[in-house]
């Protein structure tokens, strides 16, 4: 990749991070949503400590899924609305690479904070502290995959009436394997058999998604911009 492309890539990454910084409210809202969803479950199923400890990995992961879904809208929506998306499509760097940079920026602003806050939720659910590393690692590996897969959905539903609900319908079935692997890693670890296999599979999923999702996202963006 030439220096021109590298510069364009760094430029996109920096731009998206700067925009996320200037729109801190959006970032904070998605995080707050994560916490609120996780707090709903005890209200719904009762607060027995044993039950909560058991459902904790699943609940945290489902909340992470939903929060990721919420933050996907801003990946392309505002660029599409003010015309800057077309400039990106007509840019000097290959679209697949640019899109990867956007997904990374999105993860840094939306996914990484989830990894940081998850231990607080785990605390609420009295998850044994020894499981925190597995939880954090599973989220750290899984949330980028969510960003990448979600970006495909966001690109496909750009500017459509159905909006966020349609995006959820498209993307949630594709999220299922990540949910199963992520929650499974923590659950296996809790059962004593170690979650290494699931973590390795998550890492493999991340590599796979990073390699192939950009193609789909770029194709979807071009289709949506016609």
């Amino acid at each position, binding site marked *: 990749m030439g220096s021109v492309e590298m510069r364009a890539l760094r430029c996109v990454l920096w731009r998206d991070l700067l925009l996320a910084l200037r729109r801190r409210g959006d970032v904070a809202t998605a995080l707050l949503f994560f916490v609120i969803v996780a707090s709903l479950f005890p209200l719904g199923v009762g607060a027995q400590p044993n039950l909560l400890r058991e459902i904790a990995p699943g609940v945290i992961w489902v909340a992470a899924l939903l929060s990721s879904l919420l933050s996907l809208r801003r990946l392309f929506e505002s660029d599409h609305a003010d015309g800057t998306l077309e400039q990106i499509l007509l840019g000097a760097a290959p679209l697949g690479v640019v899109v990867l940079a956007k997904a990374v920026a999105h993860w840094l602003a939306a996914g990484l904070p989830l990894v940081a806050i998850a231990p607080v939720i785990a605390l609420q659910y009295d998850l044994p502290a020894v499981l925190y590393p597995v939880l954090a690692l599973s989220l750290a590996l899984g949330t980028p995959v969510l960003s990448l897969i979600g970006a495909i959905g966001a690109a496909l539903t750009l500017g459509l009436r159905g909006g966020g609900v349609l995006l959820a*319908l498209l993307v949630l079935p594709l999220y299922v394997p990540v949910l199963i692997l992520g929650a499974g890693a923590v659950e296996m670890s809790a059962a004593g058999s170690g979650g290494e296999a699931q973590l390795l599979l998550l890492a493999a999923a991340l590599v796979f998604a990073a390699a192939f999702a950009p193609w789909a996202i770029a194709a979807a963006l071009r289709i949506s911009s*016609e």
Partner: protein
Amino acid sequence: MRWFWYASPQTFFPLAGRIALWCGLAAVPLALAGLYVGFFVAPTDAQQGEAYRIIFIHVPAAWMSMFLYVVMAFWAAIGLAFNTRLSGMMAAAIAPTGALFTFIALWTGSLWGKPTWGTWWVWDARLTSELILLFLYAGVMALRASIDDRDRADRAAAVLAIVGVVNLPVIHYSVYWWNTLHQPATLTKLGKPSMAGDMLWPLLVMLLGFTLYFGAVLLMRLRAEILRRERDAAWLRAGLAR
């Protein structure tokens, strides 16, 4: 070269009509024969009694549902690669039938579960996988329905179908693994009775009947779609005037 000639909606239209008629006519006796043998002639299963007979609908429907998704993704890929109108219509026409078979598989699976295990729904690996497949079909159909521009709708749905088909094995295996993690007792699995020959061939007859039915429905849907999209075309107006 013959294939590309038939790729034009104008030449495909009459051909589709003829094939659809034959498929439909062949599907009915096959399905009736399969159902008759399955429900009345095949021997009673030692473990599950009479209730197992629902598999003669459930299993072919489940096979069809997965097979059709792959076929739909195939035509979607062809449409994206070669930019042919008919491929897009093909993928659009397959989705509803595929979703229908998925729904039938889920419904018959539920009917099977009730007398066998006492509940209307089991989080069995296969049923859960079918459920997610239904969501995938719904997603493709919903996406296509929410885009007004036909071409953009076809292409967007095509990308989604391809992404879905790549994820299909991943979803399948992760759900299977999830099932073993949470339900180690194999009793809760909807086990197929060991396939005696007497049970196998009505299953295959049903599968063939379903395939022919799908063929007929697909071609009729395609004809309807062609009429809808080509309504301004000269060849259609001339044909209608006659």
